């Protein structure tokens, strides 16, 4: 995964598993059932927004971060890059997002 400071512009997309998540949201916790793994995930608002940012098509991590910060109403750059990258890695591990390049290469 490219980190946010490298300047590379790798795009990410949602996987089919992410598109079929069943959501419940309470307060600032988002609970999602993933049918493909039969797992229930607990996401904070930032992680849920990252998934939401990808709903309209492929975007880079920098774009996703910028979009998330705007929706959260915080200043640009206020979200810690390390936390954001951790969330991205976790979503990749869960099979909910993937690199657009890798997805194309596998087709």
């Amino acid at each position, binding site marked *: 995964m490219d980190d946010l400071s490298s300047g590379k512009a790798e795009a990410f997309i949602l996987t089919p598993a992410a598109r079929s998540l*069943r959501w*419940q949201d*309470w*307060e600032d*916790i988002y*609970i999602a*059932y993933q*049918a493909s793994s*039969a797992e*229930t995930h*607990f996401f904070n608002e930032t992680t849920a927004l990252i998934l939401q940012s990808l709903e309209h098509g492929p975007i880079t991590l920098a774009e996703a971060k910028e979009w998330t910060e705007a929706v959260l109403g915080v200043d640009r750059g206020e979200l810690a890059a390390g936390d954001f990258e951790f969330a991205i890695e976790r979503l990749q591990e869960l099979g909910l997002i993937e690199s657009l390049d890798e997805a194309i290469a596998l087709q």
Partner: protein
Amino acid sequence: MIVGDLSRQELERRLTGAGLGIQFGPFNLRISSNLPSLASLAHQLYEPYPMVEAVAIIDFHVGIGSPRGLRRWFRRQASFSIDGQSPFAPYTVEHAFPALEWGINWCVATRSHHLLMLHSAGVERNGSAMLFPASPGGGKSTLCTALIHSGWRLMSDEFGLVRPEDGMLLPLPRLIPLKNESIAVIGRFRPEAIIGPSFLGTRKGTVAHVRPPADSIRRMHETARPRWFVFPRWIANAPLLLKPMAKSQAFLMVATNAFNYDVLDETAFRLVADMVRACDCYSLSYSDLDEAIAALDELSRDDG
């Protein structure tokens, strides 16, 4: 016909013969035993439970008896069996009755996946159910026992059985196994409670079984709508504190405590989510049963 309609001798004859057919909520059991000591306990503690009609389908054929083989000559033991198989190591014969009760719970927990099974006690009033999900040291059995002797109906001490079709809670008003200090606490709180003998030194310490009030057993087919989740915690000398709990936290605690959440997949997710959304969720810390019951009664009154 209820178990109490049988003489003790007839009950023993059935236990040692074709088995005693008995209903526990939605489950029909046939219990066999070659242990003479079991008949008098069963006669006392199962007395108000309905018996199974001869033509009924039996869900679990269980037994508690002396194991075959050499070991029975070294030490008197009792082995629990289901469909002729013994899933557990034998117990000392003095613990045969609690072993039977645990074994029946194990059968329900491992073989009833047509229902969502929450690990939870539950009581009912005016058609609305209050659930107490289990947590170590939480004291759900003590609180549940106190409530059912204070105007609430027992749904279950151990299982929140949720019917997937409509989310209704099915009663399973079985005996309540009180442990250690709780036995004396309930004995003092409600001297009229029917508590069986104390079994010392079991795998769970001292255990004694409370027989639910007859009304709870008589209404064992009357479902209830989940209305409250209360997560109790008994803390010595603590003041009463009943406070709302975040639904996300309640979801996490209910789902992770369920016996078969993983087995039912999305059905379980939907059911737990629907229940948590529909229920008011509270944490309760208490040291005084009277105070706790008054607070929970108040919730019930507010609902009416």
